[in-house]
């Protein structure tokens, strides 16, 4: 903690966000895309905690609390949607989900 600055933590959060964004753009398995979305959300929480710690305020940490709550609800609903999609289409590969194209 003594030698790390705000920039180090923000750099880690930014790189995590970029990795997640690349995964969302490139991957085709919907479950992996969804995990990459969660990764981007986690990167945002990391940046919030870093700002909260280095500004000596509690607000960023409380925001992270809400983000974790919303992310848990979001994962439950999203996975239920993916399961419902799999029931209809028998696939979770996004390049095979082209019903609207035909």
């Amino acid at each position, binding site marked *: *903690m003594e*030698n*790390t*600055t*705000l*920039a*180090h*933590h*923000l*750099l*880690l959060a*930014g*790189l*995590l966000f*970029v*990795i*997640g*964004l*690349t*995964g969302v*753009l*490139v*991957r*085709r*398995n919907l*479950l*992996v895309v969804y*995990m*990459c979305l969660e*990764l981007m959300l*986690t990167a945002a929480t990391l940046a919030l*905690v*870093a700002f*909260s*710690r280095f*500004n*000596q*305020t*509690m*607000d960023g*940490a*409380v925001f*992270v*609390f*809400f983000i*974790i*709550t*919303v*992310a*848990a*609800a979001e*994962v*439950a*609903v999203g*996975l239920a*949607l993916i*399961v419902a999609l*799999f029931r209809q289409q028998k*696939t979770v*590969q996004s390049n095979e989900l082209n019903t609207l194209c035909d």
Partner: protein
Amino acid sequence: MPDGLFIFFAALTLGAASLLVLSRNAVTSAMGMILTLVGVAADFFLLDAYFLGVLQVLVYAGAVMVLFLFIIMLLSDSGESSTAYPWKQATLGLAIFFFLAAGVFWLFLWSGALPHTAAGATPPELSANPGEFTTSAKSFGRLLYTKYLLPLQISGFLLLVALVGVVSLSKEPKNEVP
């Protein structure tokens, strides 16, 4: 130069995140995600946010990832690993990654957009803020029930809506009568 623990956990986090994106097996991706979340939790500990670190491991690495693994097992769709390696996609992804990563490095290290405050110095515009940074979980409770009471109730309602939504989504569709 940052200290060794930060470098270790940052490398662990980024390596596991790369494993998440690069692996063609969904279960390996989920394992990489769990390792990433643990690494982020360790970084929360390094930032003195102990309560959030514990919460991260409990909620994310525990509950959410178990749900993910369960769905992966349920769908067991390993179609991606049987096809040919998508070289074009991988090259495009790598190009996007390096472009954006260069942007991140520029923004946080060389652009001078970050304020150069040391840890422990509250900016003057935040000095009237009721929430002082502490490491105890008690300060979370105090803020949650005073300044953030309405968001707390809304998030509770959101959880209820999500619960009802998941139940109605995962019901077997009824046979439609034409």
